[in-house]
């Protein structure tokens, strides 16, 4: 078989604890986003756009829905004869088996996958960000620089820099320092968690890191700093587009709302760079004579008999008569009864909200989002306060 230029490894095993009820039953990359998408659609569609036809998706936490969603990879054109998308859960082998202990260890446990395709380079991605990026430009730069590793970098506000891996680089973009979540950041050049490695270098570094008992087995904490220390060629690839971490309820809400308004920063309608997703074949959205929608995203299977303002509704959402949905996100298959009010709320998939329920408050804000977990039934007349979280077993 012809050697591939680059394959991708997508880290999708994170629990996403700061999304609370939204990730109690699904892995973070499988969380609904932007009406008809899930978070993982963005890195996968980026791969499609960048002509990367082999993607290993490393799963660990609550993989069922994620696995089902990825399936054969057909929606992303990743159902390939040689390559395609593969989910890679932790497994049992002759010498034993164990859970993925860190981002680097997860890749280490799947070195056989890297060897099977034996590509020149390996692209490491994570499944927690909303962004559209042409990875092929980064790989070309990586080759041009004869880099051992190239790190995608985006400038973040100074006050947020302590949440990221922060680096410094010279005029040739060669990285001179790298610190994971520094208390006193030296710059605002943040790592996006997107790396291109020479495959042979990556294998060597992962094997060395695995032998180090003190290592946290993490790319940002161990692999990158060690490579810098030993004087290897690390380069930065500057990215200036929209890139948003959706790891918290507030940031998830913000990223969704960023899709509204004229000329949103993420263009979902670019015919040359589509964001692909797996959807059910439902009839188009129906908005009744007594219903309305304004400044909102809706999709197939929605049935709207109430009023929807500044909101994002996923497929198959039903909104009953006299109900008002404002500044909220309603995920797929959820049914909102009659005379319900949802304001500054996120309602997960397959929730049933009975009549005359009040969720959230019009005077609330992005830091006080009412959250209803997957599959919950909110009984008639129920009251869910702003910022309250409702989930199974609580």
């Amino acid at each position, binding site marked *: 078989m012809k050697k591939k230029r680059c394959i991708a490894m997508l880290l999708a095993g994170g629990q996403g604890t700061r999304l609370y009820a939204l990730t109690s039953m699904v892995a973070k990359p499988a969380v609904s986003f932007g009406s008809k998408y899930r978070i993982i659609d963005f890195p996968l569609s980026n791969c499609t756009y960048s002509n990367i036809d082999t993607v290993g998706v490393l799963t660990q936490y609550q993989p069922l829905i994620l696995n089902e969603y990825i399936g054969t990879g057909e929606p992303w054109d990743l159902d390939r004869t040689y390559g395609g998308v593969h989910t890679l859960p932790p497994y049992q082998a002759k010498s034993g088996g164990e859970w993925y202990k860190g981002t680097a260890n997860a890749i280490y446990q799947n070195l056989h996958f890297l060897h099977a395709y034996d590509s020149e380079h390996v692209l490491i991605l994570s499944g927690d960000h909303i962004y559209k990026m042409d990875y092929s430009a980064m790989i070309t730069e990586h080759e041009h620089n004869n880099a051992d590793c190239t790190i995608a970098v985006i400038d973040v506000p100074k006050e947020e820099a302590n949440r990221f891996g922060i680096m410094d680089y010279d005029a040739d973009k060669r990285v001179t320092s790298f610190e994971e979540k520094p208390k006193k950041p030296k710059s605002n050049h943040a790592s996006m968690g997107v790396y291109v490695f020479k495959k042979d270098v990556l294998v060597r570094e992962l094997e060395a890191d695995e032998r180090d008992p003190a290592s946290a087995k993490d790319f940002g904490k161990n692999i990158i700093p060690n490579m810098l220390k030993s004087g290897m060629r690390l380069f930065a690839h500057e990215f200036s587009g929209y890139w948003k971490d959706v790891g918290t309820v507030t940031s998830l809400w913000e990223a969704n709302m960023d899709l509204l308004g004229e000329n949103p920063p993420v263009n979902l309608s670019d015919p040359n760079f589509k964001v692909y997703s797996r959807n059910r*074949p439902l009839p188009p959205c129906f908005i009744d004579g007594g219903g309305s929608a304004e*400044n909102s995203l809706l999709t*197939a299977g929605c049935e709207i008999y109430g009023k929807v303002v500044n909101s994002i509704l996923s497929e198959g959402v039903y909104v009953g008569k006299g109900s008002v949905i404002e500044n909220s996100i309603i995920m797929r298959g959820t049914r909102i009864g009659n005379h319900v009010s949802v304001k500054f709320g996120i309602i997960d998939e397959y929730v049933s909200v009975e009549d005359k329920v009040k969720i959230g408050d019009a005077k609330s804000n992005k830091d006080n989002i009412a959250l209803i977990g997957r599959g919950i039934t909110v009984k008639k007349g129920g009251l869910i306060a702003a910022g309250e979280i409702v989930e199974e077993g609580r």
Partner: protein
Amino acid sequence: MKAVGVIFSNIHEKEIKELTANRTLASVPFGGRFRLIDFVLSNMVNSGITKVGIITKENYQSLMDHVGSGRHWDLSRKNGGLILLPPYGESGTMLYQSRFEAISNIEQFLRRSEEDFVVMSDCDNVCNMDFTPVLKYHVRQNADITALYRTKMVDGRKMRTLFELDADSRVAKVINSEKTYGEQSLFTNILVAGRKFLLSIIDNAAARGFKSFSKDILTRTGEFRIFGYPLNGYFANIDDISSYYNVSMELLSKEHRDSLFFQNGMHIYTKVRDSAPLKVEQGGSVSNSLIADGCIIEGEVKNSILFRGVRVAKGASVTNSILFQDSSVGAFSRLNCVIADKQAVILEKRTLSGHETHPYFIAKNTVI
């Protein structure tokens, strides 16, 4: 009880020439994101049929583009799956004109099939049905043909095939007439037949002078065991532009939508286009309408059906209209009772109006 499906994609095109100028009737857009053939194709798949032949005659590029390998209907299979059956050309042969000639043309396809039964349908039947009980009924009656009919008031304007049934639901008499009135049992052009039975008819066609399915086969009620099977639930048949308009508008009723799209959990499958979600902008309004993904609505839309990727600019008003994929309405234009084909562009400040019985039709790619 395995059956093979056969769909006629070019039937009735003369009567709906506006919409079939560039496409087969099968690929006429319907219901905001579907094509007519999606309904019969999905019905067959939902009934466990895994091999479907589509008989095509002409203009079938758009159909090929739509069905592709058949994977959206789960018909991309190692065994069977979706098979396009274009005309089998020998020099000097005419393109077939009737359903019977079309079947004769696919004799080899039928001969090589292993299924015991053939489910045949036109492509313009809009319904959601399961053929499994029909096949069971066919076997139980030991029928040669089981023809599906529905009970409907008719007003005598068109050539129709009507059944008179005896007490056992056996078809006693078949009437092909334009002058029938009142409540009648109307043949839907959907039928089940034994595969070997069909082949025997084709083999004997020349000797016995069979030319038309409805006139020469169905009428032989004494010779063949022909049974009727009633079709209930939502059913629409599209035979001209005004019926296309009316049948489309019926989808604005929840009852019809539920019956067509959600019957017994059976979905209607179609080709996925990966459009962005529907976006209603600040100041835009939508009422009593079906709006597909990829639409951007800045103006007012009322009692209408918008296919994928339609743009309605600020100040524009669209009422009682059907706008196909990627058409656009400029600022302050007003549309009433309009059917706009794909990629039609209505510039700013245009006023276009038809009437419910005679919708104003704008051809594909037209700029107004």
